[in-house]
């Protein structure tokens, strides 16, 4: 009796781990953009949602093979990320003088504009596709639900796919950031935009590249999770967006590994809370973590000291 419960609990932890990976996938893109622009991109959850809808459209009209599907969604994410940058971020980078660049004015004034753009995008999608849940065609969704048993535990193939995607994306990101020219300039701009400009880095192009990479990852995360859960809806970006944001704050705002670890911790904690208090109350966990982190560790669990919080 008792070890049955134990197995069940471990199963719950595995599910929580995969939920945490979902948050981590969203949090990677979020933190990447934050690292370069030092601004919260409120529209990241909408990119995630656009990825899911682009995937659904591709499945319905083209029924492509898996690799082509992921590439199409990646392309959709890149295009929408660049469009988002153009609409909500670029107009506020008109400040060119040293003082406003140093005060990071060009980056931080965009909080409200990205919020406004996210509202417009979500509502437009709702107008076009309706606010209801849309089911992903079974031919694709079922492939994510095949059980794989590991001893007494069972894992869905979708969970393995999400784990693989998370590892792949994290590795690809590290490769881009450390081994490519564009990654080098992204790191340069993240460290010091003015200095980067002085040594000839094209800041505009770097910011666009950051948005393309971060949004492409967000969109792929959206379709993977849409496939895994079987349904997508216009407001689907809000909850993972907020939780990825919580993970980013817990991780110390500009630490990508920190955000990933905190996202997984968050997923595990939610699974435990669901086990003991029920689904509805589990939503509270993220917010409790957020407030506790802000009050007791204002610089995040993995962050270095900042001047003042």
């Amino acid at each position, binding site marked *: 009796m008792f070890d049955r419960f134990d197995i069940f609990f471990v199963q719950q932890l595995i599910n929580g781990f995969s939920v945490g990976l979902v948050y981590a996938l969203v949090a990677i893109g979020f*933190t990447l953009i934050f*690292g370069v622009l*030092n*601004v*919260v991109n409120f529209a990241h959850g909408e990119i995630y949602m656009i990825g899911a809808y682009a995937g659904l459209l591709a499945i319905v009209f083209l029924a492509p093979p898996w690799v082509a599907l992921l590439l199409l969604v990646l392309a959709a994410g890149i295009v929408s990320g660049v469009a988002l940058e153009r609409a*909500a971020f670029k*107009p*506020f980078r008109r400040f060119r003088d040293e003082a*406003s660049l140093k*005060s*990071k*004015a060009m980056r*931080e*004034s965009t*909080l*409200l*504009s990205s*919020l*406004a*753009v*996210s*509202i*417009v995008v979500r*509502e437009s999608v709702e*107008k076009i596709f309706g606010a209801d849940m849309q089911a992903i065609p079974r031919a694709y969704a079922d492939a994510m639900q095949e059980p794989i048993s590991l001893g007494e535990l069972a894992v869905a193939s979708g969970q393995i796919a999400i784990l693989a995607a998370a590892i792949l994306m994290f590795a690809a990101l590290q490769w881009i*950031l450390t081994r490519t020219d564009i990654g080098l300039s992204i*790191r340069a701009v*993240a*460290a*010091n935009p003015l200095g980067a400009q002085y040594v000839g880095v094209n800041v505009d192009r770097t910011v666009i590249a950051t948005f393309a990479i971060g949004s492409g990852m967000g969109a792929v995360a959206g379709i993977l999770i849409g496939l895994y859960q079987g349904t997508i809806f216009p407001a689907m970006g*809000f909850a993972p967006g*907020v939780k990825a*944001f*919580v993970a980013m704050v817990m991780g*110390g*705002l*500009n*630490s*990508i*590994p*920190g955000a990933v670890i905190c996202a997984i911790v968050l997923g595990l904690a939610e699974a435990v809370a669901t086990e003991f208090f*029920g689904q*509805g*109350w589990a*939503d*509270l966990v*993220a*917010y409790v973590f*957020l*407030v506790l982190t*802000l*009050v007791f560790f*204002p610089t995040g669990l*993995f962050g*270095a*000291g*900042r*001047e*003042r*919080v």
Partner: protein
Amino acid sequence: MRTVLAPLAVFAVLFGALPAGLSAAGSGYLFRLADVTLIFCILALSMQLITGVAGLLTLGHAAFYGIGAYTAAILSTRVGLDAGLTIPASGLVSALFGVLIALPTMRLVSIYFAVATLGLGEMIYVTLLNWVSFTRGPLGIGDIPPLRPFGFDLSSPLGTYFLVAALAALALVVVHRLAHSYYGNALRALREDDQCAEAMGLPVVRLKIEVFAIATFLAGIAGALWAHTTGYVNPADFRFAESILILAMVVVGGLGSIPGAIVGAALLILLPEALRAIGEVRILAVGLIMFLCILFLPKGLFGEVAALDLVRRQFGAAWGGSPAVRPLGWR
């Protein structure tokens, strides 16, 4: 002269022209619209006090509005209290929560404060949604009695309008007097630079908690009015989107400007309502108006501070750090 004429004009419109016009039109829908607009005027005014005057960006204001609405709903349906008592009680309960939430969070500045209020607002929403035995969860609470404070029957559209208008006028006077006093100047000093204000001897944390308590009191009153005039409350009405709507009103009207809060509230309630013919586009219109406003009118319609300046300065303080301290890139 202006100091007499402007309030006189506002009161003449609020208690003379507007109710006369509405009665002449005789439409319940228009009365309802006027009530909702005035309730949102109270909310926008209270947020103006926190965000515009004291410079604290809050993203969880709807939660206090919700606490007020649920207090009024529960007190009047379960305890059977009179509307004359539930309205002030809602304000007090909401202000109590405001102080409880402000105590730990007021030490945070800028974006950290904004994020903490977002988190706390969502916590209150989740609680309203899941504490089914107390709040009836997603079903909401219905059959809230209309306004009959102390035996006066104000449940007719005109009576309700007059009560809501009176309370909105009271909120306007309170916020106006607060913002244009030495107290308001102290709050503006916090907005401009709270470290400097502290160095000048202002009790910064205490001022922030006080202003938060006053604003959440007003939000609670607005919630009680919403509960009594609608007759039904549901957690979905007090979510993040509603906080953003109130923030948009303040940003569109102009941060720090009291007429701005009122015009912003009226614009963002009435314009989407006027667009209803095209379909349900309320939130879409709010987002678009907010976006265009940030892009082309950074100071809002009447603002004394550009929204961008506020955000920029606040974020500069929190995230800036000195280049020597700030580590390079990601860790």
